C-alpha cells in the first residue's frame, strides 16, 4: 500500500475514534515510510492522551549534528508505546554540559542521557592522523579513555539517571592502509582499545551502558553509513536511510530502562516455527531443517532458545489440532524446540487475543508482558486491535529474516541478567507441579505445609540491589504502591537512618525461588510508613506476604513505633494487593479513588507469623 494511502486511512480511523486501529496503521506506516516521522508525531499528539504511553525524558549530548534524528527517534518510540520528552545539548558542548552542575542538562533532569561523540571530534589524531607520529597513538587512546571516564564520573556525581554512551567508530580506511594491521600501535587497534575502556568505565557504574556504535556502523557498512556531503556541509555524518537504524538501537536501551519489556513470547506454529501447514502437509511435508527453505524456520527456533536464555518464557498460541502438533514435537528430527521448552500452551481454534489473555493468566503476568510472533498479518492485526497491550512483532515478509527480527526486537532486550532470569522457566515448571499438588491437598494449610517453605529476610545488600530495583520496576500485580526505583535510588535509602529496606527470598520443596519480594519503610516520628511492599506473582497467596509484613511489624514495635501506616495506590493490575492491608487488621484512615491510607496501631493489634513458614538465616540456606 502506498504511504499516502495509509496516511488517509490513519486520519479516517482517528476521525471515527478507532484509536487502537489507528495505532496499528501508524506502526505499519512507520515500517513502510521512514520519512513519515513528523506525520506520526502529529497524529500521536491527538490520540496520545487516549493511550497508555510510557513517558521517558531523554537528553542527548553530542559532538555533531543530531537534530534530524530526534523526530525519527520520537516517532520510533511512539509506535513502540514510549513518549519521549527530549533535551538536545548544544552542538559539541557535551563536556561543558556534563561537567557544569548548573547546565540545562541537569535542570532537564533526564531519565536517560545519550552521549554520542564522534571519533573525529574527540580523537582527530585517530581519524585523519597522517600529521601525527605513530608513537603518539598510545598516548591519544589513554587521553580519550580518561576523558570519557571523567565525564561518566562527573555525571554520576550529579545524577542517578541512566546513561547510554556510544563507542567510537573506526574509519572506513586506516591512514596507513594495509600497513596499519601489521604494526603494534595501529590506528584501528587504538580505537578498539578506547572502546574497551569505555565499556570498562561503564561497567564500573550502575545504570551506565555502552552502545556499540562501531558495531552498529559496521553492521550496515562503514562506507554506506557515512554521508560525507552532509558531514562537510552540516556536520551530519550519517546517511538518512540509517537514521532509523540508530533510533532503533537507542530504543533497545529505552525499552528495558522504562520497564516496557515483554516477559513471555507466544509463538504461532504453521509457517512460523516451521514452513507449511501441519494439518495439510503432515509431519513429512513441513519445511524444517538445515537446508533452505527449512533453514529459515530452524534459525527462528534457535533464536527463540537464545531469548529463553535471556530470561523470557516461551508459549504456544496456535490454531491447530493438538494431536497434529504433538506429533511434530515428538517425531520431527529437526525440531530444536521441545514441548517442555514452553511454559504455557494454547492450541485450539479460538481467537488469538483470547488465547493470549489465557496465557497471561496461566503465567500470572499482565497482557503487556506478552509478545506475539505470528507470520499472519491478519492475526497480528486481530491482536493489535483486540489486545492492544500485547507487543506484536511485525515479522518481515521473508521467513529468512524472521530470526533477525526477533533477536533485535526492542521489547526483548535486557540490560542485565540475573540468576533468576536464567532459571525462570524452571520456576514455572515447579509452580505447575505445585498447582497439581494443590488439587490433591485437603486444606489450604495442608497445601502450605506441603510446600515446606523457608524464607530469608534481610536488608538490601550490594548483591541484591540489582534484583531489588528490577522487582520494583517489573512487579505489577502484588504491589501496594507500584513505585519504580533505580538501583541508585535504593542505594540512597540504605544511607538514610530512618529508612529500612527488606528483601525476601523463598525456598520451597520444588525450587529456590530466589529473591521474590521487597519492602521499604520510612520512620516519621512515632509512625512507620510503608513506602513500598511488593511480591513477585510467582509466590503470592502462600502466606509469604503475611510473613514479610509480620517481620516489619515486629521490628517496628521493637523500635518503639506506635503506628504502622500503609498506602494502596490502585493501578490497572494490582488488584491482588487491594485487600492486603485490610485483611491484616489495618483500618482505613483516608480513602480516595486514587489512593487509600491504612493504619495499624501496634499496641492493639499484631500480624502473626504464618506457622507453616520457616524463617531461615542466610548461612543455613547457603548450604
Amino acid at each position: 500500500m502506498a504511504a499516502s494511502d495509509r496516511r488517509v486511512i490513519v486520519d479516517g480511523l482517528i476521525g471515527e475514534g478507532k484509536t487502537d486501529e489507528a495505532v496499528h496503521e501508524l506502526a505499519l506506516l512507520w515500517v513502510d515510510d521512514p520519512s513519515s516521522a513528523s506525520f506520526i508525531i502529529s497524529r500521536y499528539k491527538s490520540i496520545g492522551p487516549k493511550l497508555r504511553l510510557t513517558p521517558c525524558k531523554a537528553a542527548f549530548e553530542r559532538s555533531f549534528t543530531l537534530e534530524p534524528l530526534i523526530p525519527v527517534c520520537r516517532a520510533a518510540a511512539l509506535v513502540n508505546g514510549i513518549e519521549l520528552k527530549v533535551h538536545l545539548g548544544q552542538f559539541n558542548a557535551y563536556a561543558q554540559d556534563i561537567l557544569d552542575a548548573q547546565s540545562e542538562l541537569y535542570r532537564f533532569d533526564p531519565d536517560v542521557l545519550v552521549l554520542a561523540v564522534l571519533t573525529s571530534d574527540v580523537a582527530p589524531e585517530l581519524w585523519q592522523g597522517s600529521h601525527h607520529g605513530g608513537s603518539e597513538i598510545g598516548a591519544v587512546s589513554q587521553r580519550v579513555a580518561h576523558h570519557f571516564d571523567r565525564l561518566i564520573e562527573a555525571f554520576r556525581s550529579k545524577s542517578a539517571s541512566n546513561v547510554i554512551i556510544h563507542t567510537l567508530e573506526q574509519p572506513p580506511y586506516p591512514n596507513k592502509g594495509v600497513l596499519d594491521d601489521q604494526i603494534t600501535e595501529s590506528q584501528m587497534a587504538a580505537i578498539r582499545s578506547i572502546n574497551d575502556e569505555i565499556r570498562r568505565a561503564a561497567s564500573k557504574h550502575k545504570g551506565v551502558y555502552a552502545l556499540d556504535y562501531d558495531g552498529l556502523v559496521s553492521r550496515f557498512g562503514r562506507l554506506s553509513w557515512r554521508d560525507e556531503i552532509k558531514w562537510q556541509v552540516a556536520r551530519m555524518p550519517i546517511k538518512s536511510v540509517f537514521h532509523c537504524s540508530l533510533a532503533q538501537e537507542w530504543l533497545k536501551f529505552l525499552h528495558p530502562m522504562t520497564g516496557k519489556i515483554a516477559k513471555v513470547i507466544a509463538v504461532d506454529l504453521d509457517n512460523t516455527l516451521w514452513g507449511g501447514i501441519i494439518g495439510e502437509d503432515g509431519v513429512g511435508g513441513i519445511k524444517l531443517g538445515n537446508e533452505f527453505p527449512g533453514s529459515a524456520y530452524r534459525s527462528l527456533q534457535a533464536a527463540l532458545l537464545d531469548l529463553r536464555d535471556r530470561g523470557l518464557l516461551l508459549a504456544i498460541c496456535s490454531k491447530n489440532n493438538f494431536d497434529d502438533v504433538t506429533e511434530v514435537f515428538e517425531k520431527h528430527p529437526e525440531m530444536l524446540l521441545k514441548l517442555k521448552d514452553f511454559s504455557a500452551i494454547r492450541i485450539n481454534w479460538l481467537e488469538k487475543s483470547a488465547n493470549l489473555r489465557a496465557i497471561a493468566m496461566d503465567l500470572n503476568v499482565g497482557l503487556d508482558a506478552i509478545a506475539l510472533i505470528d507470520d499472519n498479518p491478519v492475526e497480528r492485526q486481530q491482536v493489535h486491535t483486540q489486545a492492544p497491550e500485547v507487543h506484536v512483532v511485525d515479522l518481515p515478509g521473508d521467513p529468512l529474516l524472521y530470526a533477525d527480527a526477533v533477536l533485535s526486537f526492542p521489547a526483548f532486550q535486557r540490560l542485565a541478567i540475573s540468576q533468576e532470569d536464567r532459571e525462570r522457566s524452571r520456576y514455572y515448571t515447579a509452580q505447575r507441579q505445585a498447582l497439581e499438588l494443590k488439587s490433591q491437598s485437603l486444606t489450604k494449610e495442608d497445601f502450605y505445609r506441603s510446600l515446606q517453605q523457608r524464607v530469608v529476610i534481610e536488608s538490601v545488600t550490594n548483591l541484591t540491589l540489582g534484583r531489588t530495583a528490577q522487582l520494583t520496576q517489573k512487579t505489577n500485580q502484588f504491589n501496594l504502591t507500584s513505585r519504580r526505583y533505580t538501583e541508585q535510588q535504593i542505594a540512597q535509602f540504605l544511607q538514610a537512618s530512618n529508612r529500612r529496606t527488606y528483601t525476601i527470598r523463598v525456598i520451597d520443596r520444588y525450587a529456590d525461588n530466589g529473591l521474590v519480594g521487597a519492602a521499604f519503610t520510612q520512620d516519621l516520628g512515632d509512625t512507620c510508613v510503608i513506602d513500598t511492599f511488593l511480591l513477585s506473582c510467582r509466590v503470592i497467596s502462600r502466606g509469604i506476604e503475611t510473613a514479610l509484613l509480620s517481620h516489619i511489624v515486629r521490628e517496628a514495635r521493637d523500635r518503639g513505633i506506635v503506628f504502622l501506616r500503609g498506602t494502596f495506590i490502585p493501578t490497572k493490575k494490582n488488584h491482588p494487593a487491594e485487600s492486603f492491608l485490610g485483611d491484616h487488621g489495618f483500618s482505613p484512615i483516608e480513602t480516595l479513588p486514587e489512593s487509600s491510607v491504612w493504619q495499624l496501631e501496634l499496641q492493639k493489634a499484631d500480624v502473626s507469623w504464618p506457622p507453616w513458614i520457616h524463617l531461615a538465616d542466610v548461612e543455613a540456606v547457603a548450604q
Partner: protein
Amino acid sequence: MTDAISTQVSQIAAETFEVDVQDIHPQSSPQTLENWDSIQHLNFILALEAKFQIEFSAEEMESIRSIADAVKIVEQRTAHS
C-alpha cells in the same frame, strides 16, 4: 510536472518551517521565514531528498537560498533521472 514539483516542495517547506503552505512563495528564504535556520535547512534538504529520491551535492545544498532555488534544482535533478 513543474506545478507538481513546486507544489510538493512548498508542502515540504511548510511542514519543515512550520508555516501555512499559503505563506510559502517562490521568494521565501531564510530572510523571510523565521524557522529557516541552518538546522532546518538540513532538515529541508533531507526531506527533499527523501521525497524525490535524489541526493544533492554539497554545492547544491549551499546554493539553495530560496524556495525557487529548491524547485529549480529538484527539477534539474529529476529531469536527468
